[in-house]
C-alpha cells in the first residue's frame, strides 16, 4: 500500500489538473491545470524508476552503488524543461488575450464560432 502511494498521488494530482482545465473559468487557472497535469506525469515517471534503498545515480562521492534508475530521471528532466516552455508560451498568450479582450473568462473569450 505504502509503495503505491506515489501512484495514488499521481492520480489525485492529475485529477485536480483535469478539473482545473475543464471547469475553472479563468485562463490562468486553465494553465495551472495543464501545469498540474505535467507535474503528475513527471511524478509518475520518477516513481517508475525508484528502487527501494537506492541513491541518486551519480558516482561523485556516492555512499553506495545501489542506485535508482537514471533513465526515467532523464526523461522527467526533459519533460520539465518542455513544461517550462509550454507554461511560458501559454502565459504569454494569456497576457495578449487579456490586452485585447480585457478579460480572461473563457466564456467571454469566444470570438471563434461555427
Amino acid at each position, binding site marked *: 500500500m505504502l509503495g503505491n502511494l506515489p501512484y495514488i498521488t499521481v492520480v489525485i494530482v492529475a485529477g485536480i489538473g483535469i478539473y482545473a482545465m475543464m471547469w475553472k473559468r479563468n485562463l490562468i487557472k486553465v494553465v495551472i491545470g495543464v501545469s498540474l497535469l505535467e507535474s503528475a506525469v513527471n511524478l509518475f515517471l520518477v516513481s517508475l524508476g525508484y528502487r527501494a534503498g537506492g541513491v*541518486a545515480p551519480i558516482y561523485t562521492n556516492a555512499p553506495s552503488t545501489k542506485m535508482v534508475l537514471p533513465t526515467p530521471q532523464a526523461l522527467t528532466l526533459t519533460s520539465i524543461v518542455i513544461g517550462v516552455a509550454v507554461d511560458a508560451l501559454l502565459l504569454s498568450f494569456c497576457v495578449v488575450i487579456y490586452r485585447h479582450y480585457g478579460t480572461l473568462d473563457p466564456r467571454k473569450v469566444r470570438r471563434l464560432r461555427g
Partner: protein
Amino acid sequence: MKMSKIVRTQSGFLYPFILIFGLYIVIHGHLTPGGGFQGGAVIATGFALVVVAYEYKDVRKWITANRLSLAEVTGLLAFIITAYLGLGSTFFRNWLANSGSIFGSRVPPGINPGNLNTGGVLPVMNLAVGLEVLGGLGVIIVYMLNYLKRGEESAG
C-alpha cells in the same frame, strides 16, 4: 515601482552570489545534480531579482531583450555546432571524451570523488545550454515586465 532601500541593497549584495552559484551548477553539470538548464535558470532568477528590486527603466540599459536574445541564439548555435563536430563518427558523438585535451581525462569506474576535467562535450554543451536558458528565460522576464509597465501606463 521601486522597492525599499533595504531590498535594493540586499539584492545588489546577493546578485553576484546568485551568478556564481548558477555558474557553479552549469560547470559541474556532468558531476553533480544540475546542469545547463538548472544553472541558467538560477542566473535568470538573478536578473529577475535585480529587475524586481530596482525599477525596470533603471536596469534596461544593460539588461536588454536584444542582448539576452543574442545570448540565447549564441547558446543554441554553440550547442548544435558542438553536436555537428561529432559528425566524424556520428552526430552528437562525444568526440572530446578520453581525448586527453580539455575535459578529456579518463573517468575512473565506480564511485569516485569527481574530476572536473572529464565528460568530453558534456560540459561544453552544458555551458551552451546555460547561456541559452539564461537568455531565453531573461527574454521572457523582460517581455512580461514590459507588458506590466504598459498596463500600468494605460491604467493611469
